[in-house]
């Protein structure tokens, strides 16, 4: 134990980090290329859409030149990417304002919504998963597994509609949609995000409850748990101090991966509750052919997912040396 050098796996971890980082950059570049190309295939000339059917060909040509749409695709792509790297997201065609401003404004809805959904899913799923694992093959366990199966089968947008039906239409406790804005009413805004967050978090809770259960069951079969029990430790200490701390690693991994999926899933939920979030922004921008907004927001969401996946991979490799040595 006198050895003071770097841990035996340090070089393995560095190599792994470099490899993963290169893959991350390549993936982000590929994602940006795919999005850019897809945006250029979408039928409908943005200049014609902005000016309407009455526009003269000269006016359309002038606007195309102003928007940079007359330049070769590669030049447009490089220009877009270099502006993005400098932090300039460009202007929205429809709103006539900076996309960065729009994104920040909409992120103030989608960000808290995603966080609230994650929080809801963790608060529900982890205790349920622990309960099911510690009461295996008993009615409580079957109840949790049933909840998990039902949660996986219910589409988030239907869960949203049912919540509106119960809490807005019947009980009048909540509004059926809309968002007052943080500056106008903090509690009103929190309240308007609550039902969508529950609808969005419900499915994740079902997945996480099942995962917590199976992960904890696996750990509870390990020898060191038997040793802890044979030492006479209280069952609560065995479960929370020894078993759960190890069982939580895969749960955290999946939770990390779900954050990105939740952001994407917010598109439909924001439609259900008429929330002015990123998802609704991109959905409306697709219909309005506001290409700069679509490509920037889609790239942003995809980048968040790719980066979160990268961080989760790193965390997992850090916690489980077998991954980086593979």
């Amino acid at each position, binding site marked *: 134990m006198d050895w003071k050098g770097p841990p035996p796996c340090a070089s393995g971890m560095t190599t792994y980090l470099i490899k993963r980082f290169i*893959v991350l950059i390549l993936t982000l570049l590929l994602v940006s290329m*795919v999005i850019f190309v897809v945006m250029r295939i*979408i039928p409908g000339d943005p200049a014609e859409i902005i000016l309407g059917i009455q526009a003269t060909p000269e006016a359309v040509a002038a606007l195309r030149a102003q928007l940079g749409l007359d330049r070769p695709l590669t030049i447009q792509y490089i220009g877009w990417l270099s502006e993005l790297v400098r932090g300039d997201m460009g202007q929205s065609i429809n709103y006539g304002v900076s996309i960065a401003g729009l994104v920040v404004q909409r992120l103030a809805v989608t960000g808290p919504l995603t966080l609230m959904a994650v929080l809801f899913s963790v608060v529900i799923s982890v205790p349920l998963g622990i309960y099911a694992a510690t009461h295996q093959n008993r009615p409580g366990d079957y109840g949790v597994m049933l909840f998990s199966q039902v949660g996986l*089968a219910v589409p988030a947008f239907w869960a949203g509609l049912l919540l509106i039906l119960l809490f807005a239409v019947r009980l009048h406790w909540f509004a059926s949609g809309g968002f007052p804005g943080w500056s106008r009413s903090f509690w009103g805004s929190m309240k308007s995000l609550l039902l969508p967050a529950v609808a969005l978090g419900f499915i994740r809770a079902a997945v996480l409850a099942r995962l917590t259960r199976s992960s904890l069951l*696996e750990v509870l079969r390990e020898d060191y748990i038997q040793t802890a029990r044979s030492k006479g430790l209280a069952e609560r200490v065995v479960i929370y101090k020894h078993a759960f701390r190890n069982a939580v690693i895969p749960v955290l991994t999946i939770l990390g991966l779900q954050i990105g999926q939740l952001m994407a*899933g917010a598109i*439909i939920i924001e*439609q259900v509750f008429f929330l002015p979030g990123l998802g609704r922004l*991109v959905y409306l921008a697709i*219909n309005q052919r506001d290409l700069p907004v679509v490509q920037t927001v889609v790239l942003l969401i995809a980048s968040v997912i790719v980066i979160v996946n990268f961080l989760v991979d790193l965390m997992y490799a850090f916690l489980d040396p077998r991954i980086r040595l593979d």
Partner: protein
Amino acid sequence: MRRFFRNRNFLIGFIISSIIVAGALISLCYTPYDPTTMDIHHRLEAPSHAHWLGTDHYGRDVLSRIMQGAVNSIIVGLVAVSIGMGFGVFLGSIAGYDRGIADEVIMRLSDLLYGFPAVLSAILITAVFGPGIVISMMAIGVFYIPIFARLTRASSLSVWERDYITAARAAGRTDLSTLVRHVLPNIMAPLIVQGTIQFAVAILAEAGLSYLGLGTQPPQASWGLMLQEAQTFMGTAPGLAIFPGLAIALAVLGFNLLGDGLRDTLDPRLIQARR
């Protein structure tokens, strides 16, 4: 077959999905009313003897539309899984056999597609090619390709190492013949299980796209579209927002349970692991 039906998940899943499939098949030759014919004198009616699940805002029979929606969902599931499985197994087989540059390229492309948010991409694809059931089936199917490619590659890697493969090669079989006759039949079980689960996911995805107005187009019935139309009338006709959603949840639950049951039965090691 008896061992399948001894599995509780399989049995329940089989019953539920059989009811859904039977409803869809019956709707091809019989529905209580024409699912697209409007009857404004009987709009937004509550469930009754004449209309078991009520009528919508155009007076169309909800039960008939749910039955027609089942056909849509099943077709979407079948086509999407076929696209994903067809291309995925083909690419995964090449990757599993090659293990060189082709493997690396296929797997990296698969990673790229896998990491992309499917909902967002499906919306983009339908935005590019226009909304409709055909495009939504393809959009969903494309995102199944990496799932089946990864599964095929991972499963076939170990099969290629087996003694009977060496024996087949020693007997003079070509690699293609070995792949078709020995490797693929031995990885069918996980592919079928995954196919059943992805079938359920396709039903959910189609409902989501139709809810956004990007999937099935009116006047055709789709469960997601029915829910979108129901949102305006939730105060007066809550059943419109309940029954189609219930149909989606039941169909997904049925096929998920069927997939779970198949997995438990085809891979007994999993039962041990779960315990």
